[in-house]
């Protein structure tokens, strides 16, 4: 056995080995993660002004170039594993990520592709966020647009992010902040310190100043320190997390997605043509994303659609991590899988819901295979949206199917991160676009997993970090 790889704390440019460590073993290779105490984080946050200065010294156009270069390094490069001279290849990363998070290699690689795309499309991303304002906005603080001087200023000296471990793709959310010259302070998810660390290494190698990055694997207390010590922060978590931080305007909480497909009257008979899109929405990325569909609402033909979906989903079987066709993720903590399985069985006892996949799948929902713990895909037919399984989500391919009159759908779906509306009905489309409970709307038979770089994802990061100031008079701006 070789000596431990050590992933250090990054203290705004300085590596730091903590005496508190989390230890993992990746294919026989010990891996240690330094854990920062909250006081250490608080002290570092006092130094953020220097981090901002380092970013502001570089033209935004150059930072965009760095990001595009970092995209290639992240996807193809050999980057530091930790704080010594050992290097991590893309394969090393994917295999280790798979072992720590339960994502099969195939999904680890596809997530790398997603993050790479978010980085290499950074111009489109920034343009989408600023609605096409030139990059020099971040160098000068103002631009002239349609003959008007437009002035924006940063409302924070840093962006704190409490990352989850469920899917590395979420890291694409914080990346644009660096190009907008806002330093980031990250708390990685317990099972995925690898992705943010590799991203930071790629960005530093591409030219970003080291001091622009804080990387603090830490405790809950440290996480709170980070959320309350940065001017703007993002946290991922459950509804309980959402409730806890709801009173704080500077914290943007990404709770449960409860993403949905709604099939209008004009598509209700045509569902067989779109079955694969629906299956993809439910099962892509192992069902781990907040943009995975967790409820399908159709105005007619519920039972035939549900039966076809159940057959397709039940056919998705656990496969070994390194199998190229693997879709299902294992659970890093088998107790979580068991708890979900027990909860589902408990709620299925409430009248009005049937697990339709039970009769088609090859064994029980909870299964140990290939030395891992899986939950097989589960499709629930519900009679009513009030059923506790009708509008919920779990971190594996899970969805409910309901029959709801088209006219009642918008009023009943509740807060939904993504809604794919299968319809050409213009009047209903306008109703959907003017609704207040949908964050991202796909009009047409598209997967909920669809990403368009020029559209903001889960809120507009630019508007979260910057604020427009009324600017009058032209002596300086001219």
């Amino acid at each position: 056995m070789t000596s431990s790889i050590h992933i250090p704390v990054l203290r705004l440019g300085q590596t730091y080995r903590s005496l508190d460590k989390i230890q993992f073993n990746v294919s026989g290779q010990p891996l240690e993660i330094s854990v920062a105490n909250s006081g250490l984080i608080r002290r570092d946050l006092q130094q953020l002004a220097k981090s901002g200065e380092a970013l502001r010294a570089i033209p935004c156009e150059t930072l965009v170039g760095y990001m595009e270069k970092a995209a290639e390094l992240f996807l193809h490069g050999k980057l530091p594993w930790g704080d010594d001279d050992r290097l991590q290849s893309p394969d090393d990363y994917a295999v280790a990520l798979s072992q720590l998070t339960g994502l099969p290699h195939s999904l680890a690689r596809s997530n790398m592709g997603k993050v790479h795309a978010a980085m290499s499309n950074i111009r489109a991303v920034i343009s989408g966020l600023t609605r096409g304002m030139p990059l020099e906005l971040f160098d000068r603080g103002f631009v002239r647009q349609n003959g008007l001087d437009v002035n924006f200023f940063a409302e924070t000296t840093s962006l704190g992010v409490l990352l989850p471990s469920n899917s590395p793709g979420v890291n694409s959310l914080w990346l644009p902040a660096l190009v907008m010259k806002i330093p980031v302070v990250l708390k990685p998810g317990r099972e995925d310190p690898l992705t943010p660390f590799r991203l930071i290494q790629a960005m530093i190698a591409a030219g970003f100043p080291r001091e622009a990055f804080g990387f603090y694997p830490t405790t809950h207390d440290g996480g709170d320190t980070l959320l309350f010590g940065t001017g703007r922060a993002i946290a991922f978590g459950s509804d309980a997390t959402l409730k806890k931080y709801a009173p704080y305007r500077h914290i943007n909480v990404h709770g449960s997605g409860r993403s949905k497909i709604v099939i209008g009257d004009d598509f209700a008979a045509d569902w067989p043509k779109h079955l694969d899109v629906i299956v993809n929405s439910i099962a892509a990325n192992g069902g781990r994303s907040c943009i995975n569909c967790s409820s399908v609402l159709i105005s007619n033909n519920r039972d035939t659609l549900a039966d076809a979906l159940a057959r397709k989903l039940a056919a998705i079987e656990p496969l070994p991590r390194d199998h190229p066709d693997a879709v299902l993720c294992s659970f890093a903590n088998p107790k979580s899988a068991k708890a979900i399985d027990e909860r589902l069985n408990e709620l299925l006892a409430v009248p009005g819901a049937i697990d339709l996949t039970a009769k088609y799948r090859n064994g029980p929902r909870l299964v140990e295979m290939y030395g891992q713990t899986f939950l097989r895909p589960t499709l629930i037919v519900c009679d009513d949206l009030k059923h506790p399984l009708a509008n919920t989500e779990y971190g594996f391919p899970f969805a409910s199917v309901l029959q709801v009159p088209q006219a009642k759908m918008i009023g009943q779906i509740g807060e939904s991160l993504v809604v794919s509306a299968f319809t050409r009905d213009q009047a209903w489309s306008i109703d959907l676009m003017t609704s207040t409970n949908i964050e991202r709307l796909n009009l047409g038979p598209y997967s909920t997993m669809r990403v368009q770089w020029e559209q903001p994802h889960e809120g507009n990061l630019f508007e979260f970090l910057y604020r427009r100031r009324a600017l009058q008079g032209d002596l300086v701006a001219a």
Partner: protein
Amino acid sequence: MSSTLTPAQAQSALDSWTRKMIAWHFSPATGCDYWLKWAKTAGWDPRKEIKCFADIAKKFSHFDDDVLRTEQPERFVPKAYAKRPYNVFETGGTTGMPKQRVGWDDYKTDYEEYSDHYGPDFFPKGNWLMVGPTGPRRLRLAVEHLANYRGDSCYFVDLDPRFVKRLIGTGEMAMARKYQEHVIDQAATILRHRKITNMFTTPRLLENLAERMSLVKAGLKGVFVGGTTMTPQYVRFVVEEVLENKINFAPTYGNTLMGLAISRKLTKADNYSLTYYAPQPRATLRIVNPDNPTELVNYGEYGRVELTTMTKEFFVPRFLERDEAIRRPPCSEFPWDGVGDVRPFQSLTKTIIEGVY
């Protein structure tokens, strides 16, 4: 400061002290109402059956500290102290009816012994500042006595841990932070305007204070802390960054029932892992198997902390603390077992509100 006793001599002294204290607490002439009545119903006479400290573990069951909440404090007054008014001390962060113990001189004895352990190079002559729980706590009088015993005076800034606990318990984190700032504001003001040489506070308040100012530049020379868990990383952070490797640091482990356990001097080999030693023979700490508290764990292993306090003022046999720690061997400073890397009992398996004050 090295002890003059060998471990065997310390054990012998503990056994002798045990016999003396058992005789005191279970004699109708000197004992208190609570223990004398207890002995009547126990079916055995401690004065006859307790011959050494090991017999305490064999014969007594675990002290239920809830009686300190339910019984009147007078019941714990030894007859020998009946004519002296007593102090009532309450335990730290409890809510509802607090647990109370009576006391007279124990805190002075504990803190004088503590003071004697540290020379004038560690805590140089000068004013003290205490920032932490005062109110009905023993600590308030104890820290002032420590300063006075060393010929110095002490300033105070209060922190009410019960209020902090309540705020956190009800999710009022913003208010908890404001309260913490309020405490730190007061401490920073004293440090800026008065000549302070030594300080007692909790680790968390210490680091918060150091975020406002350099404690070295403020003139501090020695800091004494107690109150919450300190992992080796935390200790290193305090020593290197909060105290800038320039201020003497004396971590302690203690409570109202025990008194004060001193930490042995850190060496490089410790790698910032703290080991505390109870003020034996007045109080003894054992690290026991949580599933079978009659047996000690091996050296180097985690177990639950069990406290036995035996002074003329107070008797507490085999109280299971809400902490766990590593059993550590005797050292040159303290020739009896120590407790290392103390943390809340089962802290790895349950959520605990700790560390805010």
